[in-house]
């Protein structure tokens, strides 16, 4: 399928000279992108690159079945261009973002609002969609919430208990990460990467490190790739276990809730055993890893991991064995497979709709080229399916970790990196625990970042949560929200 594309092809974690990326006038660019999306490609990134007086649009597509990525760009322009969203809704947030960052108007975009633009000390949310009618009432939740979570605003249009429409307004945590990266890499860059989304530290750090390595024309030593894969799965285990506990807590099922809260800590402590930080900060660096895992500590890790996995198995079994819990999750918050494909869901949310979509499998890079975890898929698209996919991934990541820890890669942990190649575009995808983490970097003539684009999986998936709520009882919003468990700061950047 991808063989006949006019797009430039490249593999995950590789780079391409900027001059080799095909450039078309914007109308042609939009038509070509729409054509590829119709043929089954997926939009990983769509962003603007300022060029002279105008701006170029760059699209990064993924052909999952062909294990390849494709890029193309438009010639510089300013003003308006035909919207891609009209035919391919997965582009809707990207186009809103491009308008906000570069002032390019997508003509025909059905809901053109700011994404995270500031208006004083709050985001410019604009007008919310309203449903009229005597029976309809509006419920506004947030940005300040009752629990200790990040800020975001949710606007529900309800008829009684039923939600007709949910609109999510974010941007409260916009820190200007992408802007800060221009002209980089700076001294602070690595720390910024590790805090793009604090619970996805390893995935974002690995994506950035991989990008730097491919810009330098090399890759990290095998032992570092092995260690990154282990840390990535530990991150997945900790977060998925925490999510299972949070789901149980939201339906007031105490046994699993209490146990999973504790076991999540056990998994975090395993990451701390590797690098001294529970969230894996300071482990992954361009060119390798900063902390080694000697055989003694690896053995200790394996032993503690097995205990924690057995505990999780038990806690999750209580959960699935309880009819009262299953009754709360089945047929609640359904996203249909066709919808999921249309809006470009990624990660467990997509796999819970029966879509086989996993970067570790579709676009393997690093250690995943040699050792793969099976993809966990469940049909249904409801809260039950999303919880089920998580519990399957806990099992499979655990199995994967046990196998990989028993067969470590030998060699150096870190290598010196050459300076980044000038005028080069590099793409790195990593399957974080929430889904596909996508980093794209474009260097200038001096080898500094001319543009650095980060797409957290939450950017794709927030729309999925809004769709899941349609026709669902408003009292089921918390379990729908937890079943996605998306990042606010990863979206707000």
């Amino acid at each position, binding site marked *: 399928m991808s063989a006949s594309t006019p797009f430039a092809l490249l593999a995950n974690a590789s780079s391409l000279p900027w001059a080799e990326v095909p450039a078309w006038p914007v109308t042609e660019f939009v038509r070509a992108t729409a054509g590829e999306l119709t043929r089954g490609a997926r939009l990983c990134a769509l962003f603007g690159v300022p060029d002279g007086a105008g701006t170029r649009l760059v699209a990064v597509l993924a052909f999952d079945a062909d294990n390849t990525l494709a890029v193309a760009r438009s010639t510089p322009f300013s003003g308006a261009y035909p919207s891609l969203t009209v035919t391919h809704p997965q582009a809707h947030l990207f186009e809103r973002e491009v308008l906000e960052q570069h002032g390019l108007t997508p003509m025909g975009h059905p809901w053109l609002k700011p994404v995270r633009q500031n208006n004083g000390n709050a985001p410019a949310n604009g007008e919310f969609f309203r449903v009229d009618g005597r029976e309809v*009432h509006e419920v506004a939740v947030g940005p300040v919430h*009752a629990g200790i979570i990040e800020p975001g605003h949710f606007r529900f249009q309800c008829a009684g208990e039923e939600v007709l429409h949910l609109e999510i307004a974010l941007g409260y945590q916009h820190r200007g990460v992408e802007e800060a990266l221009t002209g980089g890499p700076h001294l602070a860059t690595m720390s910024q990467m590790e805090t793009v989304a604090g619970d996805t530290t390893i995935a974002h750090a690995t994506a950035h490190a991989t990008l730097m390595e491919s810009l330098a024309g090399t890759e990290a030593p095998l032992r570092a790739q092995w260690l990154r894969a282990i840390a990535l799965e530990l991150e997945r285990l900790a977060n998925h276990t925490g999510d299972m506990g949070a789901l149980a807590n939201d339906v*007031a099922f105490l046994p699993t809730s209490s146990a999973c809260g504790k076991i999540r800590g056990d998994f975090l402590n395993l990451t701390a055993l590797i690098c001294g930080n529970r969230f894996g900060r300071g482990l992954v660096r361009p060119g390798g890893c900063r902390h080694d895992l000697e055989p003694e500590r690896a053995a200790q890790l394996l032993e503690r991991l097995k205990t924690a996995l057995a505990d999780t198995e038990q806690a999750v079994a209580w959960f699935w064995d309880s009819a009262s819990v299953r*009754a709360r999750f089945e047929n609640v918050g359904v996203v249909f497979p066709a919808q999921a494909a249309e809006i470009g869901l990624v990660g467990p949310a997509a796999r819970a709709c029966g879509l086989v979509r996993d970067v570790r499998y579709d676009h393997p890079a690093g250690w995943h080229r040699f050792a793969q975890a099976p993809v966990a898929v469940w049909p249904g698209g409801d809260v039950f399916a999303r919880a089920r996919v998580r519990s399957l991934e806990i099992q499979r990541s655990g199995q994967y970790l046990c196998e990989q820890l028993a067969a470590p890669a030998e060699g150096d942990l870190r290598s010196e990196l050459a300076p980044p190649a000038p005028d080069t575009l590099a793409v790195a995808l990593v399957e974080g625990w929430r889904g596909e983490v996508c980093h794209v970097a474009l260097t200038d003539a001096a080898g500094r970042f001319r543009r650095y684009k980060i797409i957290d999986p939450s950017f794709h998936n927030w729309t999925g949560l809004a769709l899941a709520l349609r026709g669902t009882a408003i009292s089921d919003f918390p379990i729908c929200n937890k079943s996605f468990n998306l990042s606010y700061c990863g979206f707000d950047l």
Partner: protein
Amino acid sequence: MTLILDLILRLAVWLLLAPLLPGIINKVKAWVACRRGPPVLQLYYDLAKLWRKGVVLSTLASPGFIAGPAVAWVALTGAAMLMPLGPAGSALSFRGDVLLLIYLLALARFCTAWAAMETGSAFEGMGAAREVSYAVLAEAAIIAAVLSLSVQTGSVSLVTMLSPSAGAGAVLLAAGLFTVLLAENCRVPFDDPNTHLELTMIHEVMVLDHSGPPLAAILHGASVKLLLFAVLLVQAVLPMGELPPLGVAGALAAGVLVVTVGVGLVESLLARLAFRRVPLLLTTAFLLCLFALLVAWKGGAK
């Protein structure tokens, strides 16, 4: 004089013992989860703290915002005073006092819902709507239970209705009344008293905007209501008529403790129901009480 002393003593028992129940429930939950949990007396500390605090008032709220919780608390305490206490019987017994009891509970509910809507918050309106819709079904079950007791004893006075040995439908009545107790007191599986998620709350969301002494009145009133239902359940079901007075007092206390621990266990081991399934369970409770009524009417006739 004796009457006044009797009333004061009863009032003291109800007001002082009631906050113990939520503490016991929380201890049971903590014990099941292998946690240490808050102290059994936590609610007393909370009430003392709230009583000393100031009140934050919405500029939109009418005096009903404060009056609602106050009236509700008085109504609940009044209802408690009507309830006979084992060997001590009742101080304010009269023919038809059971009707007054049911109406006092309804008055308390009305006042809480009224105060909830005072601030105009979408959350509290939602909570009030939920509370009154489920109350329709819970009240039906209570009325059926009271009728069955009334038919069984041929009386409409609480002292006579609750004092003799249990009727033939005691098991049905126990199941029905326990379910109503869970629903009326906003416990799992109907509501989650511990949740922080406004969108899923029933009772808790109605009192979100209350603070200080009014909130203390609401919390204390809720604990009195829990004790009231526990006492009602135990006396309606346990055959205590033949026991000596001390035995009756012991059996009553033990019964209330068992009910409280039962609530804690249900809360530890069961997930909450989805709202759309709540009516099913409440209707089941109503049917159980209705069958108890049938048994009392046809089966239990002497």
